[in-house]
């Protein structure tokens, strides 16, 4: 791109530049005028899209990192090897920008390290989330660093980091299990506020299971996207393995979604919440369960059986949207459900603007990394990565 100045101002790049410029303006507004000036948050609704989307969805959709690296290195599914680097890269960027996005939502962003170094509130599930995310973003950085080190030509450090792969992968799964589930557990403290169809003492389990689906779906979904935009950057191995990766992930996602569907049903039965299904919230719940759990489970299964890549990719879109829908339901739509409509929350356009800005930052950084560094291909001088 940079070598050819004429082709730099493509429609995509113009849009990116426009969003980034707008985001900077909103950023200045947020940090000089306060949270109240750019959001519709209030005393009844302290958490909006910045938590519901940037944090909850961001972390879930970055789960591809631990799902892929665990499949490849721990469970010996070597055919996923070419998918590990793109997945780790996305996960690292995902988590890094989750932290960046969080700074917008915090009243005292510069105090973010407080729970780690100054005053530990160990009874809080948010403490667990904070500790795990802080550690995991570091782990992901180290796991991702070989791509940058190969690009920069730091052979010795790179070889040392490669040796850490196994312990880092195990640590990654441990940390992911804990914070993915803790994000759900955050809401266990508020039984009076979250609608009974979503409230459960098993929220941590639901969040963890669905994060695996999110990870698998994102690997397929991003795969489809990068094949469109960055096909020329992929080596023969990556291209040959890509289909197998998609089908493998689809198969796993199908099974997990099916299991998820059943444990959700068990949960509704155990709490005897069936009568809520006849209400408006029941309809919302049914849309989630049938449209974004059962349907993708079925499409994934069918796609794998028929070896139909298009169907698997369609299913992954439903999987990704389903995670977003679920996290929105838990944190916003079904939260404060007993409040009258006038006291409910709807995001301010500037809140959404900041979220779009953050997503654009992630995509732009990914494009930069994937064009410069050996992510979608193996560096010719380092063929031992297997």
């Amino acid at each position: 791109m940079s070598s050819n100045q004429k082709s730099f101002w493509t429609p995509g790049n113009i849009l990116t530049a426009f969003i980034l410029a707008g985001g900077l303006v909103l950023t200045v507004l947020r940090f000089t005028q306060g949270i109240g000036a750019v959001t519709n948050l209030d005393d009844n609704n302290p958490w909006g899209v910045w938590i519901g989307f940037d944090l909850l969805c961001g972390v879930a959709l970055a789960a591809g990192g631990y799902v892929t690296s665990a499949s490849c290195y721990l469970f010996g599914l070597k055919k996923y090897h070419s998918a590990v680097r793109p997945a780790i890269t996305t996960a690292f960027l995902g988590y890094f920008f989750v932290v960046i996005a969080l700074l917008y939502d915090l009243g005292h962003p510069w105090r973010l390290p407080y729970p780690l170094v100054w005053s530990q509130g160990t009874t809080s599930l948010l403490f667990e989330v904070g500790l795990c995310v802080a550690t995991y973003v570091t782990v992901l950085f180290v796991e991702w660093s070989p791509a940058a080190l190969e690009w920069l030509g730091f052979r010795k450090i790179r070889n040392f980091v490669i040796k850490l792969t196994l312990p880092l992968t195990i640590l990654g799964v441990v940390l992911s299990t804990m914070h993915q589930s803790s994000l759900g557990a955050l809401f266990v403290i508020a039984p009076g506020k979250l609608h009974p169809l979503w409230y459960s003492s098993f929220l941590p389990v639901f969040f963890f299971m669905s994060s695996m689906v999110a990870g698998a779906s994102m690997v397929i979904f991003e795969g489809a996207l990068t094949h469109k935009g960055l096909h020329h950057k992929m080596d023969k191995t990556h291209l040959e393995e890509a289909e197998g990766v998609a089908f493998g992930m689809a198969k796993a996602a199908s099974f997990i979604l099916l299991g998820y569907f059943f444990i959700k049903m068990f949960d509704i039965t155990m709490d005897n919440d069936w009568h809520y299904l006849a209400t408006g919230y029941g309809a919302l719940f049914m849309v989630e369960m049938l449209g974004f759990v059962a349907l993708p489970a079925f499409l994934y299964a069918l796609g794998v059986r028929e070896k139909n890549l298009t169907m698997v990719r369609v299913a992954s879109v439903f999987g990704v949207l389903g995670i977003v829908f679920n996290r929105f339901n838990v944190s916003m739509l079904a939260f404060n459900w007993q409040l009258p409509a006038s006291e409910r929350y709807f995001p301010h356009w500037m809140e959404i603007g900041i979220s779009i800005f953050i997503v654009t930052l992630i995509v732009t950084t990914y494009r930069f990394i994937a064009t410069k560094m050996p992510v979608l291909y193996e560096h010719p001088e380092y063929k031992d990565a297997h």
Partner: protein
Amino acid sequence: MHRRKFLSLLGGAGLASAMGVTKSQAASGHSFNGYPDAMGVLHDSTRCIGCRKCEEACYQVNDLPKPEKEFKDLTVLDTKRRTDAKTYTVVNKYNTAGLEHPIFRKQQCNHCMEPACASACFVKAFTKNSDGSVTYNGDLCVGCRYCMIACPFSVPTFEYDDAFDPLIQKCTMCHPRIQEGKLPGCVEICPKEALTFGRREDLLGIARDRIRKYPDRYVKHIYGEHEAGGTNWLYLSGVPHTELGQIEVGKTSAPELTSGALGAVPMVVGIWPVLLTGAYAISKRKEKIAQEEKAEAVRATRESAQEEAEAALKAAMDKATKDKAAAVEREVKKAVAEAEKAFEEKLAAAQAPAGEADTGAGESPEEEA
């Protein structure tokens, strides 16, 4: 076994299990019944006249910014209000079916015995004091507002309009005044004794007495006795509390709600690495076995191929030896025949004058061969 020894063993077991119970209960918050001398306030909505004096006292005591409308202005009560960063307490008016007069209820922090805000705060910015009050330290606060999500009564408020030092604000039960031996501002000013300050235990007694003496005047429920694990503010009412906007929050305290999820943490940290290393070892072993099997198959194939080749070579060699022997024999015979022939020719040449009988004699040795 001696009876005494048996009993002491039993006692030991009992003690151990009792300790075990204490430990697990501490983790789940079961055993905490509040500080013994914790104070509280009893609000009797059958006595409250909605004069807003308590609001005014709160504003003066806490040095809060002046509201738009005067505290004397009772039209404010016509719209439902909630506490915010500039208002620690509000009185709301409720018109309930079957009653001619409205009912007023005061709202503020309920000062839970096991506060959800304190349990949820990841920097320990909230403190449950032994006097029953829950106070907040703004110097630690990160501003994540998880306390607001966690509070079952939606009490903590946030200074959304402050860009540089936005803090959580809520009623402190006049903790500094209690320390000085004074009453909370709202209690002190209340002209109708709708608010009673005292030890929580005593307040429960007073509330029960009132319900017993005037069964027609009160519903048999002290809101706050068990709500959210018990609160230091208690409420009496003549109508169901839900009609005064006091939602059903359940008896479970915040620490009890989250103990399961928190308790799972050490298990994940302990068990996952073991299982995952196991999974890694299994996949490695599978790989190793697969490699060994492959190597074995290669070796077997190579061996059989070699055997075949050797056999073929041997056969070829044998054949070659045979052929060679035959060729040698043939050559020898040929040479012998030639030598004989030459000898006979010589002989014939010597006997030539003897006549033409040589041709017949020359043929006979060839027939013999």
